């Protein structure tokens, strides 16, 4: 259907425009050409993203089925490169430096893992064309895919980027739930994941522990780890019903709010546009997710269905966790807000993912 193409395109572009406006509002007063131009770079990324979206909407998603091992291998390779470079440079980092931009492989890895899992669980038996996943035992149904997920997950958490790593895990569990894999296996896996959480505490880095403690009570460290959350809550709350108006947000424009153009862009937006603007923004995000679910439900192809669900869930979870973290409802993990936060990789991958989504809907009639 063409309608889903236009709906998703219009919604995504609307949100992206609001994102550019928010990035501009929080950086235009900063000194230095880099800051002055940052919104232009975002526009450029959006333009590239748009081209990718149009391309992907024409590109038959079934060919991703064939490419899935390649994509998976590429993602792991990039993540490994980041890992090795991090060791060589003796410093944590999350991106690879290319000619004139930084590429964040974890964004790419999220999409690659979803494609990989969608294919894995939608293989059909050669005899009766039924889904294999219904007959999977615990090894094939849970353990093997978990190993495939945990390799990139480990590399991402090691970067360190706990947020993106756990995002992979969440998407994996959600997708598992959508397949025909027996529920008792899924619950076994979840129990196995949840039980050792207190044990994992010791593996967390100091700043990650700090962030979790601060999430419980931001006031234990108001000038350190708690500062961002406190300022972000002030920014959102001070917006009131109508907001302070574009370019009039004191919290973000006078730099009380750190990361006001990346992870905390929602606070920047909400301060200026108020409750009204924020609820409309949430509605737009919800409509995209809903469109994704509708596409997933009406496609006949099980690969396309899982892929659409995976993309929609990834999108929804990122939006939720980012905004919840802005409001102090979730611990601070470094997750961007899709379509709004400044960052080329995130914009590009999100548009590609949405393009795939649109393409799934377009191919519906073929199968």
């Amino acid at each position, binding site marked *: 259907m063409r309608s889903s193409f236009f709906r998703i395109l219009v919604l995504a572009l609307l949100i992206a425009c609001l994102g550019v406006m928010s990035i501009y509002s929080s950086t235009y007063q900063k000194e230095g050409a880099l800051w002055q131009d940052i919104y232009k770079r975002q526009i450029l990324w959006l333009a590239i993203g748009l081209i990718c979206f149009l391309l992907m909407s024409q590109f038959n998603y079934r060919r991703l089925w064939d490419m899935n091992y390649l994509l998976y291998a590429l993602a792991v390779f990039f993540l490994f490169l980041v890992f090795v470079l991090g060791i060589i440079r003796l410093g944590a980092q999350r991106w690879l430096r290319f000619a004139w931009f930084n590429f964040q492989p974890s964004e790419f890895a999220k999409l690659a893992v979803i494609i990989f899992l969608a294919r894995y669980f939608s293989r059909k038996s050669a005899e009766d064309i039924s889904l294999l996943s219904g007959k999977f035992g615990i090894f094939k149904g849970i353990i093997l895919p978990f190993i495939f997920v945990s390799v990139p997950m480990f590399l991402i958490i090691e970067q360190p980027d706990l947020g993106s790593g756990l995002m992979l895990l969440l998407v994996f569990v*959600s997708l598992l*739930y*959508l397949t*025909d894999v027996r529920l008792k296996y899924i619950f076994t896996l979840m129990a196995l994941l949840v039980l050792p959480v207190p044990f994992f505490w010791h593996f967390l880095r100091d700043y990650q522990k700090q962030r979790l403690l601060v999430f419980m009570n931001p006031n234990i460290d108001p000038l350190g780890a708690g500062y961002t959350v406190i*300022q972000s*809550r*002030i*920014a*959102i*709350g*001070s*917006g*009131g*019903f109508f907001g302070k108006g574009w370019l009039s947000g*004191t*919290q973000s424009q*006078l*730099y*009380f709010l750190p990361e006001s153009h990346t992870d905390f862009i929602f606070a920047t937006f*909400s*301060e200026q546009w*108020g*409750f009204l603007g*924020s*609820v409309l923004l*949430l509605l737009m*995000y*919800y409509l995209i*997710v*809903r469109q994704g*679910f509708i596409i*997933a*439900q009406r496609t006949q192809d099980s690969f396309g269905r899982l892929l659409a*669900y995976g993309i929609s*869930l990834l999108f*929804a979870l990122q939006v*939720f966790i980012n*905004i*919840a973290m802005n*409001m102090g*409802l979730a611990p601070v993990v470094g997750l961007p807000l899709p379509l709004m936060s400044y960052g080329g990789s995130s914009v590009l991958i999100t548009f590609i993912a949405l393009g795939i989504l649109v393409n799934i809907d377009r191919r519906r009639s073929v199968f």
Partner: protein
Amino acid sequence: MSFMERKNIFNILVILLFGVLCAGLVNLELLQGRKFRRLSDSNCIRLIEQAGARGNILDRNGQVIVDNMISYDVLVLPQELSRIDHVLGEVSRILDVDAGSLKAAFKNNFFSSSIPVTIASNIDLSKAILLGEYKIEEPSIIVQPRPLRHYPYGPLACHVIGYVNQIDRWRLTKLEDYGYKTKDIVGFGGVEERYDYYLRQEEGGLSVEVNHRGKFTRVLGFEPPKNGKDIKLTMELGLQKIAEEALSGRKGSVVLMDPVSGEVLAMANYPNFDPSVFVNKRARSISALFNNPDAPLINRAISSSYPPASVFKLVVASAALELKKINASTTVICKGWTMVGKRKFSCWDVHGRQDIIEAIAHSCDIFFYKAGLLLGGQNIHDYALKFGFGKATGFELPYETSGFIPSPLWRSLNKFQGWFDGDTANLSIGQGDCLVTPLQITVMTAAFANGGYLPDPHIVKAVGELDLTARKKRSLRLPFKKSTFELVRRGMRSVVSAPKGTGSALSSLPVKVAGKTGTAQVSRGATHAWFAGFFPYEKPKYVICVFLENGGPGHAATLVARRIIEEMNKQGAI
């Protein structure tokens, strides 16, 4: 089948997640929005205060008694802390003060990098100009004029004016609701305290926006400071000077009042103080003032009470005439003493046969013992109250005392003792427990001067543009016979005009004065001296009360009065 159920759960889950986000928004932006708005404002809005000037205090002709002098404070804006040492060094060179003291002041007063820090205060104009030139080079320096209380006449009329100082706790708890803050400068005593609300300036200031480093970004608003309202007194500067000079270092008080309107023209007290010590914060001089046993901060004219002695005889005479216990032809023979009960009461002299006019003129005690005993203690008390004794006059200045007039009823209720004729005799000559303030005596004297009206004494003519004269209480008509006042007036005139009158020292003056002297015996020290009178006799323009604490006989007060009247005459005030 199972797939359909499972996917529905995701629909619900996503709606739930977005619902949680919406609830979070409602909580932050709608329910707690006001709180966060305030927090956001306090993040980025700073106030820089600018002081206005306290209202001036003027005399009745608009001459300045108290005004403000501009003093200069030096402040630095510590935005770039690295340069502070250099800047302080330069400032210390220009001001010719030790750089260490500037650094110490900077450290003590530093609050935030966006708020200017006071490093030196009260510098003189020439240095302020020099610093102003340096400011072109170093814009973080601010030379701020600050008005300070200035007393061009030093201690003149200090008790009427009062002084200013930092607000104390007791006043703060009382005045917080009226917008007073800690460290506010408020008035203590006198007009400064009573009319502080009108005199006090309204602070103005800049509200500026700062960023997360406290660096100034832009000016949000400017509210010019408002000066306080001027207070115009009924006091006349020339007369006040004459009165203070005449008192010349003797402990006591002089009140000069218009007998008809009740406007106080001069109110002098000694010992006095220099209010500027509170402005300059000279700690030793201030503590010396508070520890001085002579209580220089007390306004003796209204805040302390003394036995009125013979001046009180005017009350007894009026009461006796009103109640027809005596009349113009009643005479008493003064042998120098008389027996009241079993006690011998003596007069200060032997006067022979005395009628009422002679008795007032010679201040004969025997005549008034007799008159008092005819009246009885309660009657004397009642008439004293009619003349305004025993209660505050309602004068504007704070800390007025009411004085005290004893009565048989009071004695039995409070002391569980009887009232004897001896007490009546004592009260008749204004001794015993009887206590009055110089202002009360002035008001009483005014009633004889103006023919029977008790004026409402006041010293403030106008507050700002508002003329208070019309708002004053009308003079109270005393319901006495005209002949009563006439007789007592004649008696008061002969105090001065009779050759042996106690106030005959005033007879040589070119203006006809009438009055009454008093010599109050006190348990310790020399007697208090009183003179209460009015002049010119026919058409009184002034009522005067001179009181000297432990100043000797009434004659001493009469001499002070003579100096004042002479001087007033010389300056053509009469």
